[in-house]
């Protein structure tokens, strides 16, 4: 597990190359749609089970249109598993009115809570996965800039994403060289060599930061990132992207009114 994590490329595995209506949308429209959809889902009362059905159908329809393979989405949904485990425990430890299921006493409110977390977490995570699978990182950054997210913040994110894989690979190489010299720790007090290599990685990263800063100065950087954006979203982009949150908001309103 550590091997797969340490040597794999975190950033490259995000985007799924395909031609689709979803891939082609302007990134800022997709970002707004994502946030609108997830917020609407989070605000929906847990008892409106049908509403979550609508959200699930809507977001999986988008997955289908985007040509992102279902197994890719499912595999990346694994990040919410820890909280699924937590959610499944709630009916057992929850208080209030109890119900008997197969001879086990479960909290009714606890079951609703479990449902609430599972439904909202999986819908939210699926929507995020659709965004990163259909939008390249540079385009996400462009979208954030167009949505007036502070430029400094977007630039910091950009540098992080640019150098993340490089650092992960460096750490992986350090780990490999340790394994090659038969260091295979199993206990916390044997962790020193690994932690030392993390310390060395920090020093290297900081020094790279300083060299990058010099490379920026050498090309006329004075402290503000230049504006490089040229092609904002069209009305068509906005109207297409709006369909997802629109469905969600209408569903939310109906769910709350009913």
């Amino acid at each position: 597990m550590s091997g797969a994590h340490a040597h794999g490329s975190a950033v490259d595995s995000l985007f799924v190359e395909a031609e689709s209506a979803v891939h082609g949308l302007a990134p800022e429209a997709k970002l707004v749609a994502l946030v609108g959809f997830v917020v609407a889902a989070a605000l929906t009362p847990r008892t409106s089970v049908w509403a979550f059905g609508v959200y699930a159908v809507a977001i999986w329809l988008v997955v289908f249109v985007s040509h992102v393979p279902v197994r890719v989405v499912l595999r990346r949904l694994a990040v919410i598993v820890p909280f699924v485990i937590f959610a499944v425990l709630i009916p057992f430890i929850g208080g209030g009115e109890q119900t008997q299921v197969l001879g086990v006493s479960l909290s009714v409110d606890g079951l609703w809570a479990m449902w609430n977390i599972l439904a909202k977490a999986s819908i939210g995570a699926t929507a995020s996965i659709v965004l990163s699978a259909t939008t390249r990182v540079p385009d996400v950054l462009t979208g954030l800039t167009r949505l007036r997210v502070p430029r400094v913040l977007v630039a910091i994110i950009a540098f992080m994403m640019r150098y993340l894989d490089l650092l992960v690979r460096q750490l992986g190489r350090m780990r490999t060289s340790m394994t090659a010299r038969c260091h295979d720790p199993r206990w916390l007090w044997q962790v020193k060599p690994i932690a030392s290599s993390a310390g060395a990685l920090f020093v290297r990263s900081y020094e790279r930061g300083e060299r990058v800063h010099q490379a920026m100065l050498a090309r006329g950087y004075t402290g503000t990132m230049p504006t490089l954006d040229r092609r904002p979203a069209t009305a068509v982009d906005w109207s297409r992207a709006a369909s997802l949150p629109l469905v969600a908001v209408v569903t939310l309103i109906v769910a709350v009114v009913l």
Partner: protein
Amino acid sequence: MSCAPLSVSQLRFTYPGEHHAALDGIDLEVTAGERVALLGPNGSGKTTFVMHLNGLLELQNGAITIGDLVMSEDNLREIRRRVGAVFQDADDQLFMPTVRDDVAFGPANLGVAGDELDRLVVETLERVGAGALIDRSPHHLSGGEKRRVAIATVLSMSPHLLVLDEPTSGLDPAGRRELIDLLVSLPQTQMIVTHDLPFALQICPRSVIISGGRVVADGPTRELLADTALLAQHRLELPFGFDPTRV
């Protein structure tokens, strides 16, 4: 004009907190359009010298003139436009999310924008034979591609002097040959720091050896490389079997 002469006189520099001078009185004259190799062992002061040419280290002693422009705090911006520095690790040079943004970074800082910027980026990438890479992420490029894009990031600022630090390091033979073809085709005055002596011989008619912060030799590359005593004295070595007089 796309190339400018370089004049360096009595350049001295000591890093804060250190006793030994990193540069101990460098004098150098380079004529417009010349390609000069800068040779020397590790720690000889080459990198310190290169950083001075771009105003990345503050001038302590001596003078640097590029064309008709004297290096000073006031005209740093213009100096940095005229001097294109390509650093050793291309991953330091290519910091933007896409090749397009990286090549646009310099000219955009100089105020170029809109269609003019677009055209400039496309033209510059075509110039270095990397037009097809425009929308790629820098970390997806091969070593040779990275190097050519790194050169494009400074060419887009229309420099008069190119300073390259170890441009052949980490390149495979084909990438190295393509780099040579590119550098030879560029009209700019070029200062090339390198440990790759055959590379220096192939593209630089003249070489300068820096050792201990001073210029210890300055002359035709072929002659310097044939002087085995001189090379040995400054920890420079030719590859096994390489004879500079027979190339």
